[in-house]
């Protein structure tokens, strides 16, 4: 197994290199100027010097290799230093990946935004699992019943209604009409006591529910078909013939086996949820990674766009590997070696 993991991780390296190269080539075409956000009073010669020190005029390949070194060597080292409070080598002399707009290091911006996205995406994911798996199991167990029909309709709605429409409907109903929840997510809010915790829950309900609805749709249909596949297996008949209680047959025997493909789908779905969060964050004004990406794109902030897009790609590749490995661990019939 560990051999398989190592092999997968090694093959991921060329994939990621190609993807980073593609992103770099596309973004290199952008008509952007690193000094575009600086004051107008700076004379052109100084501007030229700034561009020169930022390496803007270097040939393409040099820029790419420099970026690779910054992304894979320098910034991880900086994060290590910050988190452990130590100094590794010449930490002042390392050229950092800087945003054109804020001129601060890109990594700091991302770390600043990470908790909000993780909170919203994480809790929506947990919520969608809690909703989807019982619906899927029950729909399969009572196939073609009214509950199953309702579950299928729920899933179709989840596939088809875009998150920005469900989000806006939620705002219209719960914020504008009823005034229950705030329509804007306040990130400066700090949880200190019970009352502020309630406020935090209230402001997270709508973004989390909207995202969870979209991902629960796919998950519940998948669970349903996985359970259906297992219900007709011989081992289920054996369990029933032994005289096991129906609840034990379903919840212990069938559910455990059906969850194997579902768990891998959950792993595969995590990067997609990060992508979907771009839109949800925009609706509810959550200042997470997705909103950072939109701001960076609109402001032509190339280093930031590059890094964020590449991080999304890394997430996809990483969770693909995790899904395959999980499959091997959970299902003893699958052996990779």
């Amino acid at each position, binding site marked *: 197994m560990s051999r398989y993991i190592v092999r997968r991780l090694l093959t991921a390296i060329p994939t990621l290199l190609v*993807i980073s190269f593609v992103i770099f080539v596309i973004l290199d075409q952008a008509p952007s100027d690193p000094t575009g956000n600086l004051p107008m009073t700076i004379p052109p010669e100084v501007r030229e010097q700034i561009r020169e020190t930022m390496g803007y005029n270097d040939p393409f390949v040099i820029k790419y290799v420099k970026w690779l070194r910054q992304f894979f060597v320098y910034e991880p080292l900086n994060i290590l230093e910050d988190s452990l409070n130590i100094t590794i080598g010449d930490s002042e002399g390392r050229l950092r990946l800087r945003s054109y707009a804020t001129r601060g290091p890109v990594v700091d911006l991302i770390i600043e935004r990470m908790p909000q996205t993780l909170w919203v995406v994480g809790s929506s994911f947990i919520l969608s699992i809690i909703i989807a798996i019982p619906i899927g199991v029950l729909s399969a167990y009572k196939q073609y019943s009214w509950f199953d029909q309702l579950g299928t309709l729920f899933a179709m*709605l989840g596939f*088809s209604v875009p998150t920005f429409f469900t989000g*806006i409907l939620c705002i219209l109903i719960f914020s504008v009409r009823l005034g229950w929840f705030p329509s804007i997510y306040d990130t400066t809010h700090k949880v200190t006591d019970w009352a502020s915790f309630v406020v935090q829950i209230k402001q997270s309900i709508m973004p989390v529910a909207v995202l969870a609805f979209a991902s629960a749709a796919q998950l519940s249909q998948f669970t349903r078909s996985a359970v259906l596949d297992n219900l007709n297996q011989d081992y289920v008949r054996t369990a029933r013939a032994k005289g096991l209680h129906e609840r034990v047959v379903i919840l212990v025997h069938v559910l455990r086996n059906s969850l194997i493909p579902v768990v891998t789908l959950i792993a595969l779905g995590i990067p997609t949820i990060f992508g979907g969060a771009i839109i949800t964050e925009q609706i509810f004004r959550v200042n997470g990674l997705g909103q950072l990406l939109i701001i960076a*794109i609109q402001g032509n902030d190339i280093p930031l*766009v590059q890094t964020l*897009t590449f991080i999304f*790609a890394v997430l996809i590749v990483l969770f693909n590997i995790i899904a395959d490995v999980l499959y091997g661990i959970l299902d003893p019939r699958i052996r990779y070696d």
Partner: protein
Amino acid sequence: MSSEPAQLNIPGHTEEHQHRSLWMDVWIQYRKHKGAMLGTIILLFLILAVTFGPMIYTVSADEINLQAINASGLPWQENFSWSHPFGADNLGRDTLARCLVGGRISIAVGLSAMLIALVVGTTVGILAGYYPMLDGPLMRITDMFFALPLLPLLLVVILLFRDSLRQIFGPEWGIFILIVSVIGILNWMPTARVVRGDVLALKEQEFVTAAVSIGTRSQNILLRHIFPNVLSPIMVSATLGIANAILTESALSFLGLGFPSDFPTWGRVLFDGLNFIQITPMLVFWPGLLISLTVLSVNFIGNGLRDALDPRLRGR
């Protein structure tokens, strides 16, 4: 069925044994799927409405009517008028007219992006499935595309190439071509995978061996024997492709990176109404509902097609 008595006497030649084509079977099965039939009817109605609607409902989509500014789309509110049944926006442009014209573009984007994705996906899938030599490299490329972060990349590419394409094809068609081709090029992978799998299974079957043995050239085998047999997965992924493309286009417009405001699509009308959600909620509601209805009916059609084309389910 002919009613001539001579034919009726032939044993076994009754109504049940009448020759039916494959597509007739599919249609009979498809009609039984209630959701799919409802979806077909709604989709046809929407397509007819956006095609002929602007000819019947002749209010202009870009005319600025100062008296209708922020007209409400709800009959029980005081600033409602029957000349603007869906209301109007902050510039006094009629929402119904904008939704009708916008629907043309949204549906056109869906159809054309789906066509691009389908052509690329089918070609890659058939080539990879049929020629073992091409299988490895083509599937590696497919995996690579699967690993691309689609939405961020779409946003970036559109931002970068918007201006240059606008100069070549004009402000409206430039962005149309850009959006359609980018959505198409980033969404062909599922089709390619499904088609490749089917081709791999098909090429081992006897009729292909027979065709090879009588010396049929490989491009003829691909076109006449393989391609017609992979039509069903292609059709199912076509419906998914339309739904996906419409959703993606509206998401782009929603993020403000799609079509310009004077070239309305459903997503764009919704985006424009977003800042006035407290004053004229209907401005956001109608385009959102239209997007959801279209995608929902396309998805139901896809479900019905999948069931109808599956020979194991047919005839039940």
